[in-house]
């Protein structure tokens, strides 16, 4: 990247899991830098360690070797500057939408009045004001994910880590939420690391698409998407989009030596 220091820096991260008597290498010497305000998507076949990478950045797992840095400091646990959005929404089912959104504010000791106001603001932002006092079980999948997004935004993180957030949603809801996410992002420019298995989604959202390969998990390819492009329906249907999509598709589905042992053991660094 340029002279700007990386917001997120992954340096030679390896993660192995014990799998019976064997060890499974989820990530093999992965390095990458993400600049502030960048929107990076990570796409790859299952088992490429993309969720592991996110969990390490979230501070939920520790790397076996190497280190992950956020704002220049090694990640040693979860932190309020990193908001995480999970695929399974992970809403607390016994709390209402409002209580869910306020959860992070309560744990960080925000006074009640401010908590209320901030929760209100973010519930409105995701369009759930009519459902503020509803329990998650009464919400549709898209609404649940919007609630989860509001909950992550409420603690005002400078980084959003999103693990296939729209993976369980139908195509229509997914497109709507993608556009809403970009709209919010274009205003606040939080740094986003967005994990997906959907090539279209990866291309549409990203400034940069990182393609990972599996067994062992590693960075396989990096595809830049011109940040100047307007992300709208025209882009989605444009030949440029199709070309990018082709490239990413190829990278994901026709990886050299996919079934063979580590082909490119070294990682592609940006």
């Amino acid at each position, binding site marked *: 990247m340029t002279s700007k220091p990386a917001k997120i820096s992954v340096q030679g991260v390896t993660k192995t899991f014990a799998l019976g008597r064997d060890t499974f290498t989820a990530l093999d010497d992965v390095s990458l830098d993400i600049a502030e305000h960048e929107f990076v998507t990570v796409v790859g076949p299952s088992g490429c360690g993309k969720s592991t990478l996110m969990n390490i950045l979230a*501070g939920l797992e520790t790397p076996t070797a190497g280190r992950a840095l956020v704002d220049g400091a090694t990640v040693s646990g*979860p932190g309020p500057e990193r908001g995480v959005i999970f695929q399974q929404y*992970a809403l*607390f089912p016994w709390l209402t939408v409002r209580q869910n959104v306020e959860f992070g504010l309560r744990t960080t000791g925000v006074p009640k009045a401010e908590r209320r106001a901030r929760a209100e603001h973010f519930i409105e932002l995701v369009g759930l004001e009519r459902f503020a006092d509803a329990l998650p079980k009464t919400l*549709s999948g898209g609404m649940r994910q919007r609630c989860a997004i509001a909950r992550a935004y409420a603690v005002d993180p400078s980084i959003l880590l999103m693990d296939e957030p729209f993976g369980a949603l139908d195509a229509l809801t997914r497109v709507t939420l993608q556009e809403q996410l970009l709209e919010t992002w274009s205003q606040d420019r939080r740094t986003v690391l967005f994990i997906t298995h959907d090539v279209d989604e990866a291309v549409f959202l990203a400034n940069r698409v990182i393609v990972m390969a599996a067994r062992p998990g590693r960075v396989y390819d990096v595809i830049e998407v011109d940040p100047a492009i307007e992300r709208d329906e025209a882009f989605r249907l444009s030949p440029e989009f199709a070309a990018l999509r082709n490239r990413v598709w190829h990278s994901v589905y026709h990886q050299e030596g996919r079934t063979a042992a580590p082909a490119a053991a070294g990682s592609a660094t940006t």
Partner: protein
Amino acid sequence: MSVLDKRRAGPRHPAGGETTPAADDTGPPDAKKTAAERPGTGRRGLPLALNAVSVALGIALWWALASAGFKLPTPPEVVSRAGTLIEDGTLGEDVLASLTRVLIGFALGTAAAVPVGFLMGWYGIARGLMEPWIQFFRTVPPLAIIPLAVVVMGIDETPKIFVIFLAAFLACVISTFQGVVNVDRTLINAARVLGAKDAVIFARVVVPASTPFILVGMRVGLGSAWATLVAAELIAAQEGLGYRMQNAQLYYDLPTIFVGLISIGILGLLMDRILLLAERKLTGWQERR
């Protein structure tokens, strides 16, 4: 999770019996709400009617068997005996004595089981230390403890309450433990990334998430407590429903035995309904099938 997980499956829906239709993921919530109300009214009446019919048929069958010469008292005989026993205060005293034993034993058992279950579910060390004992005592029926309890604790209330306590405790501790073990990892992670530390995660995630399991454990524990009561009252009791029935057995007094049985059944059912009500109040957030 070893032997403990033979506790019932279906962790999300331990209550059973609920008729609330599942809120599916896709439909608009408003439509769901009306869908939930519509069949609710129709469906509630039918099982009640079926229950009444079933009870009536059962009584009729009993009556028929009694008239056919089986050694059974007829329903009127039992009702009139119940009347006598209520009038002279015997039934009241017996119910009070039995209820006191069950409630004390059950309350103590539950009160001990919940923290122990939490400790076992949350801390590997606690699990390792306590699991063998719990497994061991689970295989020994509480009734088999009675001879020991009598020798060690004498013949007053203590051994009776102790075996009831043990029965309730064992049923509830395993369910609680299972509840803590089953707490969705994602929810714990979600709490962690929102800045929650262990104490907060425990109080605001683990406790509410395991509440349905605890309540199921309490219901099972209550059943065990009643089941143990009669045998516990074998131990030189002076009153109590179990004692009254054993006493009646000596005199071949079948109506009294029936009054005792029916009283125990009704009391157990009432207490179970109260717990079920609490369960609905406390765990209404669950998605039920």
